[in-house]
């Protein structure tokens, strides 16, 4: 069950929907056995929410694995949300998940759910013509967290 977040103000929603500049970007690491490990620049909440991805340990270590892990340093993510997106509540929620010091593979799916929850909350504030972001919200609404791939 994803953590509940209060409804964002229009001002916050606007910030969360826009893309940040290059100097403010967050960098993730795309990890895949056949393709290698390469940094990926991320510019928005929606991009971060969909990029952050890791299956179960059993899936990840499965021999012949060809799937991709979307790694983001969680502490950096929390700081980025707080200082760049200026979403204190979301940053606190991420920090709370990290308090116990659990490994990335355990915490990341929960953090992703929180990010997705926020993405769904801000979706109604989006320009209805932006089909791509709408589809992102649809994915969440359908319960697709990406963990089952």
């Amino acid at each position: 069950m994803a953590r509940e977040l209060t409804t964002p103000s229009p001002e916050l929603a606007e910030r969360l929907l826009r893309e940040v500049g290059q100097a403010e970007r967050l960098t993730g690491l795309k990890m895949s056995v056949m393709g290698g490990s390469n940094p990926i620049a991320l510019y928005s909440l929606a991009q971060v929410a969909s990029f952050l991805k890791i299956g179960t340990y059993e899936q990840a270590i499965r021999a012949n694995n060809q799937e991709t892990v979307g790694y983001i340093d969680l502490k950096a993510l929390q700081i980025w949300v707080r200082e760049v997106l200026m979403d204190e509540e979301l940053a606190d929620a991420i920090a709370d998940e990290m308090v116990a010091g659990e490994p990335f593979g355990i915490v990341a799916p929960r953090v992703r759910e929180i990010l997705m929850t926020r993405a769904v909350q801000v979706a109604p504030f989006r320009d209805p013509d932006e089909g791509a972001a709408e589809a992102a919200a649809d994915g969440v609404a359908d319960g697709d967290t990406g963990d089952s791939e």
Partner: protein
Amino acid sequence: MAGGYTGKILRIDLTKKSVSTLDSEKYQEYGGGHGMGSAVFWDLCEDKTISAFDPKNVITIMGSPFSGTLVPAASGRTEVQGIGPQAWPDELFTRSNFGGRFSGQMKWAGYDGIVVEGAADEPVWVDIRDDKVEIKSAEGIWGLDTTESQEEIWRIVQGGIGDEWREVGKGRTTQRPAVLTIGKAGETKSRAAALIHDAGNGAGQGGFGGVFGAKNLKAISVIGTGSVEIADPKGLMDARLWSMDYSVGGHLTEYEPKGMGSMFGGAPASGAAGYAPADQPKSPMGCLGCHKNCRSRFESAASNGSSCVDYFFYHVYDQAAHGSYTQHILDATEALQRYGINSYQAEAALIWLNNLSKAGILGPGLEIDTKLDFTKLGTSDFAKEFLDMMANGYDVGEALHEGVAYAAEKWGRYEEDTKSGILPIQCHGYVQHYDARTEVEWGYGSLVGDRDINEHDFNTLVFWAPSIATLFGAQPDCSADQLAEIMGEKLSPYNDPMMMDYSDEGIYSESMAKLVAWHRHYTRYYKQSLAMCDWAWGDFFNAYGPEGRGMTGEGEPKFYKAVTGIDQSFEEGMETGRKIWNLDRAIWILQGRDRDKEVFTDYNYEVGAVPGYTTYEVPYVVPMHKDGKWSYESAVGRMLDRDKVEEWKTKFYTLEGWDPATGWPKRETLEELGLGHVADDLEAAGKLGK
């Protein structure tokens, strides 16, 4: 003639429009595949310093004694060689490789390989039906995409698309011909053009699609009704069944997928299926004779047969735009294959262009002017527009048509962007695949060779398994102690456990020089000459094997003996690999390679290896030997030390019997390997090591 060989290499001269054969027995000492291809290239390409696009460039397309046989994960690979246009700043003799069934059909038609020389004066394709070979006009085929091209050739050869029995040469078959073709990117001589076979098999790295285009060669089609003579058929069947004990397929009644490390043992499942809409029906598919079936096909048919790497140029953008993988990624990959574009080049280009776009450097009316709308990134329409530019050479594609390294030079951004790493070219114009700063054997192997090695032998054991385990607070199935022990046993003739030491000291050591040398020799022979698939071999740690031991060392000679009848030890095969490696080295030396050109781009020395940031667990974990103990530890943040890399190169050159001052092979080294004639040519060129 030993089993597994047909005794003939088909020789096609497009300039003279002539067809003949070479005696392949002369080249049998090289095993097949790459070794045979290098030796044939050496003999037939008189001036090895010519451009890749010169009609005199010689292209070899080779099978192996294992092609079309029951040897697991070795029956369906085909090796392509020649001078490739992709490397930067110097074009290099290079290689690529593709799966499918081409090599099997080639063997069944009676050929160990095909050599293409010259260039046609108009577009042609080659029609091979057993011993009947014709060079035909490509009118009506030139201009088609890679799928359409193959379908048209099937229609011509089969007299329709049906799968009924047909007379071909002296036999009958229900099979479709295996076609190797180019798309628009190849026709326009792009350095980023791939050769495509069936739906998703591609030889991308090297730019051989552009070489086909320069030769006016649209496609080669081959169908055979013969078979491969096996020296010991029962021995081969026994070996195949024995090998299945090392894979999940031999343990179905106790099905329990084992942990990562064994590439051979992997479950026969299609990982590539993961890059599709979750609700789209899909099934695995594989290459000829393989037990793994690592590719996939989908209900929509888009991107069928592609491997996961073909999705990597775009899957993160689809996911970012749509929240999960959608039909967009399948359609984008389908377009990539139809244009015949190297996926690694497309991936690097998009990472780089996206960064430039966000930096305000690339965009409508900006320093790098483009009509691409990056707000549409993630949609299949954006992908198709971008790929069309690459294939046809307009807009940003005017530069990217030449590959990312050439584009960076054209735009005046090479130095700045490889220094910062936003254009992650590792060396020789090839983009980073695995990080040279952490998984150094990958980087070093690429540095002293011709291309991104793309050989995963150690990758899953030294990087992936420990790094993923760390992200879950777990330990890999194969401990660092066990890994060092197994490698000490298996990496003959060096047998040095310290080869697994990726510590800050270990990466510059004599032991690391041995590891890189072992890897170069093993892959040149077993993987690229005997065509054993990178996605299955070598087999070092295997959870199904006795005490975690995989088949490498025992499996390779077992299969070789069963197929050929030749009782060759594993070490003898490694020595053949060393011979092939030195022959390749000699070709590069003639093309201008020397010690000074073997340097990484600046970011490898000046920017720490970080996954973005380093405050949480970091996925850069490798085996290290410290204070007398083995453990997996993080190498995050590491930069390579220029002086120490130079010292390592001296150790490596010395180990290989090359001149440390120049990196050129010495006469005694070449003569010891039976390459005295190569030493003569190097000496005549003034490039023999002292």
